[in-house]
Protein backbone atom coordinates (compact mmCIF):
# COMPACT_ATOMS: atom_id res chain seq x y z
CA UNK A 1 0.00 0.00 0.00
CA UNK A 2 1.48 3.32 -1.08
CA UNK A 3 0.63 6.41 0.89
CA UNK A 4 1.84 9.96 1.29
CA UNK A 5 2.11 11.12 4.85
CA UNK A 6 3.80 13.61 7.13
CA UNK A 7 6.73 12.09 8.98
CA UNK A 8 8.47 13.54 12.03
CA UNK A 9 12.22 13.91 12.08
CA UNK A 10 13.71 12.17 15.10
CA UNK A 11 17.35 13.00 14.48
CA UNK A 12 19.70 14.29 11.84
CA UNK A 13 23.47 14.50 11.60
CA UNK A 14 26.17 14.75 8.97
CA UNK A 15 28.11 11.47 9.00
CA UNK A 16 30.56 12.29 6.21
CA UNK A 17 31.07 15.44 4.12
CA UNK A 18 27.68 16.18 2.50
CA UNK A 19 26.30 12.79 3.63
CA UNK A 20 23.42 13.05 6.09
CA UNK A 21 21.85 10.49 8.37
CA UNK A 22 18.20 11.06 9.27
CA UNK A 23 15.73 9.02 11.31
CA UNK A 24 12.07 9.73 10.64
CA UNK A 25 9.03 8.51 12.51
CA UNK A 26 6.48 7.15 10.04
CA UNK A 27 3.96 4.33 9.94
CA UNK A 28 5.33 3.49 6.51
CA UNK A 29 8.07 1.67 8.43
CA UNK A 30 5.59 -1.15 9.14
CA UNK A 31 5.72 -2.33 5.54
CA UNK A 32 9.24 -1.25 4.57
CA UNK A 33 11.55 -3.79 2.95
CA UNK A 34 15.23 -3.72 2.08
CA UNK A 35 15.76 -2.11 -1.32
CA UNK A 36 12.57 -0.09 -1.27
CA UNK A 37 12.65 3.69 -1.35
CA UNK A 38 10.72 6.76 -0.28
CA UNK A 39 9.78 9.83 -2.24
CA UNK A 40 10.59 12.82 -0.06
CA UNK A 41 9.09 16.20 -0.88
CA UNK A 42 10.90 19.51 -0.45
CA UNK A 43 8.78 22.22 1.16
CA UNK A 44 10.13 24.87 -1.22
CA UNK A 45 7.47 25.12 -3.91
CA UNK A 46 10.03 25.97 -6.58
CA UNK A 47 11.26 22.38 -6.29
CA UNK A 48 8.13 20.41 -6.88
CA UNK A 49 9.19 16.87 -7.51
CA UNK A 50 9.86 14.36 -4.78
CA UNK A 51 13.39 13.08 -4.19
CA UNK A 52 13.63 9.30 -4.38
CA UNK A 53 15.77 8.17 -1.43
CA UNK A 54 16.47 4.59 -0.44
CA UNK A 55 15.59 3.13 2.93
CA UNK A 56 18.78 2.51 4.90
CA UNK A 57 17.30 0.84 7.96
CA UNK A 58 13.98 -0.01 9.55
CA UNK A 59 13.87 0.45 13.33
CA UNK A 60 13.20 -2.77 15.26
CA UNK A 61 9.77 -1.61 16.46
CA UNK A 62 8.88 -0.74 12.82
CA UNK A 63 7.85 2.77 13.71
CA UNK A 64 10.79 4.67 12.22
CA UNK A 65 12.98 4.65 9.13
CA UNK A 66 16.55 5.68 8.63
CA UNK A 67 17.69 7.38 5.46
CA UNK A 68 21.24 8.28 4.52
CA UNK A 69 21.51 10.69 1.62
CA UNK A 70 23.96 12.95 -0.15
CA UNK A 71 23.30 16.64 -0.61
CA UNK A 72 23.17 16.80 -4.38
CA UNK A 73 21.07 19.90 -5.05
CA UNK A 74 18.44 22.26 -3.81
CA UNK A 75 16.02 19.63 -2.49
CA UNK A 76 18.49 17.58 -0.49
CA UNK A 77 20.12 20.80 0.76
CA UNK A 78 16.73 21.72 2.21
CA UNK A 79 16.43 18.27 3.85
CA UNK A 80 19.88 18.69 5.40
CA UNK A 81 18.64 21.80 7.18
CA UNK A 82 15.90 19.97 9.05
CA UNK A 83 16.19 19.28 12.75
CA UNK A 84 14.60 16.99 15.31
CA UNK A 85 10.89 17.70 15.57
CA UNK A 86 10.53 19.11 12.06
CA UNK A 87 8.09 17.41 9.73
CA UNK A 88 8.59 16.16 6.22
CA UNK A 89 6.21 14.84 3.55
CA UNK A 90 7.06 11.33 2.42
CA UNK A 91 5.44 8.82 0.10
CA UNK A 92 6.15 5.15 0.38
CA UNK A 93 7.03 2.53 0.51
CA UNK A 94 7.99 2.35 -3.14
CA UNK A 95 9.59 -0.21 -5.41
CA UNK A 96 9.96 -3.95 -5.22
CA UNK A 97 12.91 -4.31 -2.86
CA UNK A 98 15.59 -7.00 -2.85
CA UNK A 99 14.44 -10.64 -3.00
CA UNK A 100 16.12 -11.63 0.26
CA UNK A 101 14.68 -15.15 0.35
CA UNK A 102 16.98 -16.20 -2.51
CA UNK A 103 19.98 -15.86 -0.21
CA UNK A 104 18.95 -18.49 2.33
CA UNK A 105 21.82 -20.91 2.84
CA UNK A 106 23.98 -19.21 0.22
CA UNK A 107 27.24 -17.34 0.22
CA UNK A 108 26.46 -13.82 -0.93
CA UNK A 109 28.15 -10.58 -1.87
CA UNK A 110 26.33 -7.50 -0.64
CA UNK A 111 27.92 -4.66 -2.58
CA UNK A 112 27.44 -0.94 -2.15
CA UNK A 113 29.21 1.93 -3.83
CA UNK A 114 29.08 5.56 -2.67
CA UNK A 115 25.57 6.75 -1.98
CA UNK A 116 24.41 3.27 -3.06
CA UNK A 117 25.71 1.95 0.25
CA UNK A 118 22.76 2.87 2.54
CA UNK A 119 20.19 0.29 1.29
CA UNK A 120 22.78 -2.43 1.82
CA UNK A 121 22.42 -2.03 5.58
CA UNK A 122 18.77 -3.10 5.82
CA UNK A 123 19.54 -5.77 3.25
CA UNK A 124 22.35 -7.12 5.45
CA UNK A 125 19.92 -7.22 8.37
CA UNK A 126 17.31 -9.17 6.41
CA UNK A 127 19.54 -11.61 4.53
CA UNK A 128 19.84 -15.13 5.96
CA UNK A 129 23.02 -16.39 4.37
CA UNK A 130 26.77 -16.08 4.58
CA UNK A 131 27.30 -12.37 4.11
CA UNK A 132 30.37 -10.74 2.60
CA UNK A 133 29.75 -7.03 2.53
CA UNK A 134 31.81 -5.04 0.02
CA UNK A 135 31.73 -1.28 0.32
CA UNK A 136 33.31 1.20 -2.08
CA UNK A 137 34.09 4.75 -0.97
CA UNK A 138 35.96 7.73 -2.40
CA UNK A 139 38.14 8.22 0.65
CA UNK A 140 38.47 7.54 4.37
CA UNK A 141 34.94 8.76 5.14
CA UNK A 142 33.62 5.21 5.45
CA UNK A 143 30.11 6.01 6.61
CA UNK A 144 27.90 3.15 7.84
CA UNK A 145 30.91 0.84 8.15
CA UNK A 146 30.39 0.08 11.85
CA UNK A 147 26.69 -0.65 11.31
CA UNK A 148 27.56 -3.06 8.52
CA UNK A 149 30.17 -4.90 10.60
CA UNK A 150 27.41 -6.14 12.91
CA UNK A 151 25.89 -8.13 10.06
CA UNK A 152 28.73 -9.74 8.14
CA UNK A 153 32.35 -9.64 7.04
CA UNK A 154 33.06 -6.19 5.67
CA UNK A 155 35.61 -5.48 2.92
CA UNK A 156 36.38 -1.88 2.07
CA UNK A 157 37.70 -0.33 -1.11
CA UNK A 158 38.56 3.34 -1.44
CA UNK A 159 39.39 5.25 -4.59
CA UNK A 160 42.30 7.00 -2.90
CA UNK A 161 43.53 3.86 -1.13
CA UNK A 162 43.25 5.46 2.31
CA UNK A 163 41.25 2.53 3.73
CA UNK A 164 41.13 -1.09 2.57
CA UNK A 165 41.88 -1.96 -1.02
CA UNK A 166 42.76 0.85 -3.42
CA UNK A 167 40.17 0.88 -6.18
CA UNK A 168 36.58 -0.26 -6.23
CA UNK A 169 34.47 -3.14 -4.94
CA UNK A 170 35.52 -5.37 -7.85
CA UNK A 171 39.13 -4.86 -6.82
CA UNK A 172 38.13 -5.78 -3.27
CA UNK A 173 36.74 -9.12 -4.49
CA UNK A 174 39.97 -9.90 -6.34
CA UNK A 175 42.39 -8.69 -3.67
CA UNK A 176 40.64 -10.63 -0.91
CA UNK A 177 40.13 -13.73 -3.07
CA UNK A 178 36.40 -13.78 -2.34
CA UNK A 179 33.76 -16.04 -3.86
CA UNK A 180 29.99 -16.12 -3.69
CA UNK A 181 26.88 -17.80 -5.11
CA UNK A 182 24.76 -14.69 -5.39
CA UNK A 183 25.19 -10.89 -5.56
CA UNK A 184 23.07 -8.01 -4.30
CA UNK A 185 24.28 -4.53 -5.24
CA UNK A 186 23.49 -0.84 -5.30
CA UNK A 187 25.81 1.86 -6.58
CA UNK A 188 26.86 3.95 -9.55
CA UNK A 189 26.27 2.67 -13.07
CA UNK A 190 29.92 1.76 -13.85
CA UNK A 191 29.97 -0.43 -10.74
CA UNK A 192 26.68 -2.10 -11.67
CA UNK A 193 27.95 -2.74 -15.21
CA UNK A 194 31.09 -4.36 -13.80
CA UNK A 195 28.94 -6.53 -11.51
CA UNK A 196 26.70 -7.55 -14.40
CA UNK A 197 29.79 -8.62 -16.38
CA UNK A 198 31.27 -10.43 -13.35
CA UNK A 199 28.02 -12.28 -12.69
CA UNK A 200 27.73 -13.32 -16.33
CA UNK A 201 31.32 -14.54 -16.35
CA UNK A 202 30.84 -16.53 -13.16
CA UNK A 203 27.38 -17.75 -14.19
CA UNK A 204 25.80 -16.41 -11.07
CA UNK A 205 22.72 -14.36 -10.35
CA UNK A 206 23.08 -10.69 -9.44
CA UNK A 207 20.35 -8.40 -8.17
CA UNK A 208 21.14 -4.76 -8.85
CA UNK A 209 19.28 -1.67 -7.69
CA UNK A 210 19.01 1.04 -10.36
CA UNK A 211 18.57 4.76 -10.22
CA UNK A 212 17.09 7.20 -12.73
CA UNK A 213 15.54 10.64 -12.70
CA UNK A 214 11.95 10.18 -11.56
CA UNK A 215 8.84 12.31 -11.44
CA UNK A 216 5.85 10.42 -10.02
CA UNK A 217 7.60 7.52 -8.26
CA UNK A 218 4.54 5.29 -8.68
CA UNK A 219 4.74 4.08 -12.27
CA UNK A 220 2.42 6.55 -13.95
CA UNK A 221 4.70 9.01 -15.74
CA UNK A 222 7.08 6.54 -17.44
CA UNK A 223 10.00 8.86 -16.76
CA UNK A 224 12.38 6.37 -15.14
CA UNK A 225 12.69 3.44 -17.48
CA UNK A 226 15.46 0.95 -18.14
CA UNK A 227 15.86 -1.13 -21.26
CA UNK A 228 15.05 -4.77 -20.66
CA UNK A 229 15.89 -8.01 -22.44
CA UNK A 230 12.28 -9.16 -22.48
CA UNK A 231 9.12 -7.23 -23.25
CA UNK A 232 8.03 -5.36 -20.10
CA UNK A 233 4.61 -6.14 -18.70
CA UNK A 234 3.37 -2.55 -18.59
CA UNK A 235 4.12 -0.98 -21.99
CA UNK A 236 5.18 -4.15 -23.84
CA UNK A 237 8.19 -2.36 -25.32
CA UNK A 238 11.25 -3.60 -23.36
CA UNK A 239 11.28 -0.51 -21.15
CA UNK A 240 10.59 -1.36 -17.52
CA UNK A 241 9.75 1.28 -14.92
CA UNK A 242 12.52 1.54 -12.37
CA UNK A 243 10.21 2.99 -9.70
CA UNK A 244 7.65 0.18 -9.75
CA UNK A 245 9.04 -2.80 -11.69
CA UNK A 246 12.34 -2.11 -9.89
CA UNK A 247 14.43 -0.52 -8.58
CA UNK A 248 15.88 -4.01 -8.13
CA UNK A 249 16.38 -6.06 -11.28
CA UNK A 250 18.23 -9.21 -12.14
CA UNK A 251 21.36 -7.94 -13.86
CA UNK A 252 20.95 -10.10 -16.94
CA UNK A 253 17.39 -8.82 -17.48
CA UNK A 254 18.41 -5.22 -18.00
CA UNK A 255 20.46 -3.49 -20.66
CA UNK A 256 22.62 -1.04 -18.74
Amino acid at each position, binding site marked *: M*KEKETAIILSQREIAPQIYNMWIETYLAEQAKAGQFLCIYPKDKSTLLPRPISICEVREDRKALRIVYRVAGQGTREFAGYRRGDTIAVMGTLGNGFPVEDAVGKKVFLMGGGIGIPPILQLAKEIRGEKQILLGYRDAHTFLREDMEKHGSVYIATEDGSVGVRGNVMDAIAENGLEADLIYACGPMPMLRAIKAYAAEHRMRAYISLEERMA*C*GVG*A*CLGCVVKTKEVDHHSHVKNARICTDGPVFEADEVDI
Partner: protein
Amino acid sequence: MNTQTTIAGITFKNPVMTASGTFGSGMEYSEFVDLNQLGAVVTKGVANVPWPGNPTPRVAEVYGGMLNAIGLQNPGIDVFMERDIPFLKQYDTRIIVNICGKTVEDYVEVVERLGEEPAVAMLEINVSCPNVKEGAIAFGQKADALFHITREVKKHARQPVIMKLSPNVTDITEMARAAEAAGADALSLINTITGMKIDIHKRKFVLANKTGGMSGPAIKPVAVRMVYQTAQAVQIPIIGMGGIATAEDAIEFILAGASAVSIGAMNFVNPYTTVEVVRGIEEYMRQYQVENLTDLIGAVQ
Protein backbone atom coordinates in the same frame (compact mmCIF):
# COMPACT_ATOMS: atom_id res chain seq x y z
CA MET B 1 -25.51 22.60 -5.66
CA ASN B 2 -24.79 21.04 -9.05
CA THR B 3 -21.18 20.43 -10.04
CA GLN B 4 -22.07 18.76 -13.33
CA THR B 5 -20.69 19.98 -16.60
CA THR B 6 -21.57 18.93 -20.12
CA ILE B 7 -19.24 18.70 -23.08
CA ALA B 8 -20.49 17.69 -26.52
CA GLY B 9 -23.60 16.15 -24.99
CA ILE B 10 -21.66 14.10 -22.44
CA THR B 11 -22.38 14.96 -18.83
CA PHE B 12 -19.62 14.73 -16.22
CA LYS B 13 -20.37 14.56 -12.50
CA ASN B 14 -17.83 17.28 -11.90
CA PRO B 15 -15.35 19.20 -14.04
CA VAL B 16 -12.17 17.56 -12.72
CA MET B 17 -10.25 15.30 -15.07
CA THR B 18 -6.71 13.98 -15.33
CA ALA B 19 -4.30 15.34 -17.92
CA SER B 20 -3.18 12.71 -20.37
CA GLY B 21 0.20 11.19 -19.60
CA THR B 22 0.23 12.11 -15.94
CA PHE B 23 -2.17 9.48 -14.66
CA GLY B 24 -1.54 6.36 -16.76
CA SER B 25 -4.91 4.65 -17.08
CA GLY B 26 -5.66 5.37 -13.45
CA MET B 27 -4.27 2.11 -12.04
CA GLU B 28 -1.27 3.62 -10.29
CA TYR B 29 -3.24 6.45 -8.68
CA SER B 30 -6.20 4.27 -7.72
CA GLU B 31 -4.09 3.36 -4.68
CA PHE B 32 -4.30 7.00 -3.60
CA VAL B 33 -7.61 8.36 -4.85
CA ASP B 34 -11.11 7.01 -5.40
CA LEU B 35 -11.47 7.25 -9.17
CA ASN B 36 -15.27 7.31 -8.73
CA GLN B 37 -14.89 10.87 -7.48
CA LEU B 38 -13.39 12.17 -10.72
CA GLY B 39 -15.30 13.73 -13.58
CA ALA B 40 -13.22 11.71 -16.02
CA VAL B 41 -9.98 9.84 -16.37
CA VAL B 42 -8.13 10.96 -19.48
CA THR B 43 -5.71 8.18 -20.31
CA LYS B 44 -2.09 8.25 -21.41
CA GLY B 45 -1.77 8.54 -25.20
CA VAL B 46 -2.25 5.26 -27.02
CA ALA B 47 -1.12 4.48 -30.57
CA ASN B 48 -2.02 1.71 -33.01
CA VAL B 49 1.15 -0.20 -32.05
CA PRO B 50 3.42 -0.11 -28.96
CA TRP B 51 5.80 2.86 -28.83
CA PRO B 52 9.06 2.56 -26.89
CA GLY B 53 9.43 6.27 -26.16
CA ASN B 54 12.64 8.26 -25.81
CA PRO B 55 15.99 7.47 -24.15
CA THR B 56 16.52 8.54 -20.54
CA PRO B 57 16.84 10.94 -18.79
CA ARG B 58 13.27 11.73 -19.69
CA VAL B 59 12.36 14.12 -16.88
CA ALA B 60 13.95 17.14 -15.27
CA GLU B 61 12.89 19.55 -12.61
CA VAL B 62 12.73 23.25 -13.39
CA TYR B 63 11.69 26.23 -11.29
CA GLY B 64 8.06 25.69 -10.35
CA GLY B 65 7.60 22.84 -12.76
CA MET B 66 9.18 20.08 -14.75
CA LEU B 67 10.25 19.10 -18.24
CA ASN B 68 9.38 15.76 -19.74
CA ALA B 69 10.38 14.01 -22.91
CA ILE B 70 8.81 10.61 -22.39
CA GLY B 71 8.12 10.27 -26.10
CA LEU B 72 4.69 8.68 -25.67
CA GLN B 73 5.80 5.24 -24.53
CA ASN B 74 2.63 3.15 -24.70
CA PRO B 75 1.59 -0.49 -25.12
CA GLY B 76 -0.53 0.06 -28.22
CA ILE B 77 -4.28 -0.24 -28.66
CA ASP B 78 -4.49 -4.05 -28.32
CA VAL B 79 -3.15 -4.19 -24.77
CA PHE B 80 -5.01 -1.01 -23.93
CA MET B 81 -8.36 -2.51 -24.96
CA GLU B 82 -7.70 -5.77 -23.13
CA ARG B 83 -6.29 -4.36 -19.91
CA ASP B 84 -6.88 -0.65 -19.37
CA ILE B 85 -10.46 -0.28 -20.56
CA PRO B 86 -11.76 -3.18 -18.39
CA PHE B 87 -9.91 -1.69 -15.42
CA LEU B 88 -11.52 1.73 -15.90
CA LYS B 89 -14.97 0.25 -16.51
CA GLN B 90 -15.04 -0.82 -12.86
CA TYR B 91 -15.39 2.81 -11.87
CA ASP B 92 -18.20 5.30 -12.09
CA THR B 93 -16.22 7.89 -14.00
CA ARG B 94 -16.09 8.90 -17.65
CA ILE B 95 -13.33 7.47 -19.79
CA ILE B 96 -11.62 9.77 -22.28
CA VAL B 97 -8.94 8.10 -24.38
CA ASN B 98 -6.02 10.14 -25.63
CA ILE B 99 -4.77 9.00 -29.04
CA CYS B 100 -1.37 9.56 -30.62
CA GLY B 101 -0.04 8.63 -34.03
CA LYS B 102 2.57 9.32 -36.66
CA THR B 103 0.27 9.41 -39.66
CA VAL B 104 -3.40 10.15 -40.21
CA GLU B 105 -3.91 6.42 -40.83
CA ASP B 106 -2.41 5.59 -37.40
CA TYR B 107 -4.85 7.91 -35.66
CA VAL B 108 -7.79 6.61 -37.66
CA GLU B 109 -6.94 3.00 -36.84
CA VAL B 110 -7.09 3.72 -33.10
CA VAL B 111 -10.20 5.86 -33.47
CA GLU B 112 -11.98 3.00 -35.23
CA ARG B 113 -10.94 0.43 -32.63
CA LEU B 114 -12.22 2.65 -29.84
CA GLY B 115 -15.48 3.10 -31.72
CA GLU B 116 -16.24 -0.54 -30.81
CA GLU B 117 -16.12 0.32 -27.12
CA PRO B 118 -19.19 2.18 -25.84
CA ALA B 119 -17.58 2.70 -22.41
CA VAL B 120 -15.25 5.26 -23.99
CA ALA B 121 -17.06 8.57 -23.65
CA MET B 122 -14.81 10.77 -25.76
CA LEU B 123 -11.61 10.73 -27.76
CA GLU B 124 -8.83 13.23 -27.24
CA ILE B 125 -6.52 13.62 -30.20
CA ASN B 126 -2.94 14.42 -29.29
CA VAL B 127 -1.56 16.58 -32.08
CA SER B 128 0.59 18.56 -29.72
CA CYS B 129 3.21 16.35 -28.10
CA PRO B 130 6.50 18.21 -28.47
CA ASN B 131 8.60 15.12 -27.82
CA VAL B 132 8.14 12.93 -30.84
CA LYS B 133 9.74 13.86 -34.10
CA GLU B 134 7.29 12.42 -36.58
CA GLY B 135 3.64 13.30 -36.83
CA ALA B 136 2.08 14.39 -33.60
CA ILE B 137 3.02 18.03 -33.22
CA ALA B 138 3.44 18.53 -36.96
CA PHE B 139 -0.35 18.22 -37.09
CA GLY B 140 -0.77 20.66 -34.26
CA GLN B 141 1.37 23.59 -35.36
CA LYS B 142 -0.08 24.32 -38.77
CA ALA B 143 -3.72 25.28 -39.07
CA ASP B 144 -4.26 23.50 -42.39
CA ALA B 145 -2.68 20.27 -41.09
CA LEU B 146 -4.80 20.47 -37.94
CA PHE B 147 -7.92 21.05 -40.03
CA HIS B 148 -7.08 18.02 -42.16
CA ILE B 149 -6.47 15.57 -39.32
CA THR B 150 -9.47 16.79 -37.37
CA ARG B 151 -11.70 16.23 -40.38
CA GLU B 152 -10.29 12.75 -41.01
CA VAL B 153 -10.67 11.72 -37.38
CA LYS B 154 -14.23 13.06 -37.29
CA LYS B 155 -15.13 10.99 -40.35
CA HIS B 156 -14.27 7.80 -38.47
CA ALA B 157 -15.06 8.64 -34.85
CA ARG B 158 -18.08 7.19 -33.09
CA GLN B 159 -17.47 9.30 -29.98
CA PRO B 160 -17.16 13.09 -29.66
CA VAL B 161 -13.67 14.34 -30.51
CA ILE B 162 -11.51 16.66 -28.42
CA MET B 163 -8.50 18.17 -30.18
CA LYS B 164 -5.66 18.83 -27.74
CA LEU B 165 -3.87 22.01 -28.72
CA SER B 166 -0.24 22.97 -28.44
CA PRO B 167 0.76 26.27 -26.87
CA ASN B 168 3.86 26.29 -29.08
CA VAL B 169 2.20 28.32 -31.80
CA THR B 170 2.05 31.98 -32.75
CA ASP B 171 -1.71 32.26 -32.37
CA ILE B 172 -3.65 29.65 -30.44
CA THR B 173 -6.97 31.03 -31.68
CA GLU B 174 -6.03 30.33 -35.29
CA MET B 175 -5.51 26.67 -34.36
CA ALA B 176 -8.69 26.57 -32.30
CA ARG B 177 -10.73 27.97 -35.17
CA ALA B 178 -9.23 25.46 -37.60
CA ALA B 179 -10.17 22.55 -35.33
CA GLU B 180 -13.66 23.93 -34.82
CA ALA B 181 -14.17 24.49 -38.53
CA ALA B 182 -13.15 20.86 -39.20
CA GLY B 183 -15.80 19.59 -36.82
CA ALA B 184 -14.01 19.14 -33.49
CA ASP B 185 -16.52 18.74 -30.67
CA ALA B 186 -14.26 20.24 -28.02
CA LEU B 187 -10.73 21.49 -27.40
CA SER B 188 -8.29 20.81 -24.63
CA LEU B 189 -5.40 23.12 -23.84
CA ILE B 190 -2.65 23.62 -23.14
CA ASN B 191 -0.25 20.79 -23.82
CA THR B 192 3.26 21.37 -22.51
CA ILE B 193 5.44 24.31 -23.50
CA THR B 194 8.67 23.31 -25.19
CA GLY B 195 11.65 23.95 -22.94
CA MET B 196 15.26 23.04 -22.30
CA LYS B 197 17.56 22.60 -19.34
CA ILE B 198 21.36 22.51 -19.37
CA ASP B 199 23.57 21.01 -16.68
CA ILE B 200 26.22 23.70 -16.30
CA HIS B 201 28.62 21.40 -14.42
CA LYS B 202 28.61 18.70 -17.10
CA ARG B 203 27.88 21.21 -19.92
CA LYS B 204 25.29 18.82 -21.24
CA PHE B 205 21.56 18.77 -21.86
CA VAL B 206 19.72 17.34 -18.88
CA LEU B 207 17.22 15.52 -21.08
CA ALA B 208 18.44 12.93 -23.56
CA ASN B 209 15.98 14.46 -26.03
CA LYS B 210 17.56 17.92 -25.43
CA THR B 211 14.11 19.56 -25.37
CA GLY B 212 11.10 18.60 -23.32
CA GLY B 213 7.62 19.79 -22.54
CA MET B 214 7.28 22.07 -19.54
CA SER B 215 4.42 21.61 -17.13
CA GLY B 216 3.65 22.53 -13.55
CA PRO B 217 2.41 25.62 -11.72
CA ALA B 218 4.92 27.92 -13.45
CA ILE B 219 3.02 27.63 -16.75
CA LYS B 220 -0.43 28.34 -15.34
CA PRO B 221 -0.71 32.03 -16.29
CA VAL B 222 0.17 31.18 -19.90
CA ALA B 223 -2.47 28.46 -19.91
CA VAL B 224 -5.18 30.65 -18.38
CA ARG B 225 -4.49 33.33 -20.95
CA MET B 226 -4.71 30.84 -23.83
CA VAL B 227 -7.94 29.32 -22.50
CA TYR B 228 -9.44 32.78 -22.25
CA GLN B 229 -8.38 33.78 -25.77
CA THR B 230 -9.63 30.49 -27.18
CA ALA B 231 -12.95 30.77 -25.39
CA GLN B 232 -13.40 34.17 -27.02
CA ALA B 233 -12.62 32.70 -30.45
CA VAL B 234 -14.70 29.51 -30.65
CA GLN B 235 -18.13 28.19 -29.67
CA ILE B 236 -17.08 24.63 -28.79
CA PRO B 237 -16.32 23.75 -25.16
CA ILE B 238 -12.81 23.82 -23.72
CA ILE B 239 -11.07 21.57 -21.22
CA GLY B 240 -8.48 23.77 -19.54
CA MET B 241 -5.19 22.62 -18.09
CA GLY B 242 -1.70 23.77 -17.32
CA GLY B 243 -0.23 23.83 -13.85
CA ILE B 244 -3.42 23.37 -11.84
CA ALA B 245 -2.46 22.64 -8.23
CA THR B 246 -5.52 23.76 -6.28
CA ALA B 247 -9.25 24.37 -6.61
CA GLU B 248 -8.51 28.09 -6.87
CA ASP B 249 -6.38 27.40 -9.94
CA ALA B 250 -9.13 25.25 -11.44
CA ILE B 251 -11.71 28.00 -10.88
CA GLU B 252 -9.48 30.49 -12.69
CA PHE B 253 -9.59 28.26 -15.74
CA ILE B 254 -13.35 27.85 -15.50
CA LEU B 255 -13.89 31.59 -15.16
CA ALA B 256 -11.61 32.06 -18.17
CA GLY B 257 -13.95 29.86 -20.19
CA ALA B 258 -13.13 26.20 -19.52
CA SER B 259 -16.06 23.80 -19.13
CA ALA B 260 -13.77 21.32 -17.37
CA VAL B 261 -10.20 21.16 -16.10
CA SER B 262 -7.43 18.59 -15.97
CA ILE B 263 -4.82 17.97 -13.32
CA GLY B 264 -1.41 17.10 -14.75
CA ALA B 265 2.05 17.41 -13.26
CA MET B 266 0.66 18.09 -9.79
CA ASN B 267 -0.43 14.45 -9.56
CA PHE B 268 3.29 13.72 -9.22
CA VAL B 269 3.67 16.22 -6.42
CA ASN B 270 0.53 15.40 -4.52
CA PRO B 271 -1.23 12.21 -5.60
CA TYR B 272 -4.43 13.41 -3.93
CA THR B 273 -4.63 16.65 -5.97
CA THR B 274 -7.58 15.56 -8.14
CA VAL B 275 -9.96 14.81 -5.28
CA GLU B 276 -8.77 17.83 -3.31
CA VAL B 277 -9.64 20.03 -6.29
CA VAL B 278 -13.10 18.41 -6.50
CA ARG B 279 -13.70 19.20 -2.79
CA GLY B 280 -12.28 22.69 -3.14
CA ILE B 281 -14.54 23.58 -6.06
CA GLU B 282 -17.55 22.50 -3.97
CA GLU B 283 -16.37 24.70 -1.11
CA TYR B 284 -15.95 27.65 -3.46
CA MET B 285 -19.46 27.12 -4.81
CA ARG B 286 -20.85 27.02 -1.26
CA GLN B 287 -18.87 30.09 -0.24
CA TYR B 288 -20.16 32.16 -3.17
CA GLN B 289 -23.57 30.46 -3.30
CA VAL B 290 -23.09 29.23 -6.84
CA GLU B 291 -25.97 26.90 -7.66
CA ASN B 292 -24.60 25.46 -10.90
CA LEU B 293 -20.99 25.03 -11.83
CA THR B 294 -21.93 25.98 -15.37
CA ASP B 295 -22.71 29.49 -14.11
CA LEU B 296 -18.98 29.95 -13.56
CA ILE B 297 -17.87 29.00 -17.07
CA GLY B 298 -16.46 32.10 -18.74
CA ALA B 299 -17.84 34.29 -15.99
CA VAL B 300 -14.77 36.51 -15.71
CA GLN B 301 -15.61 40.15 -16.34
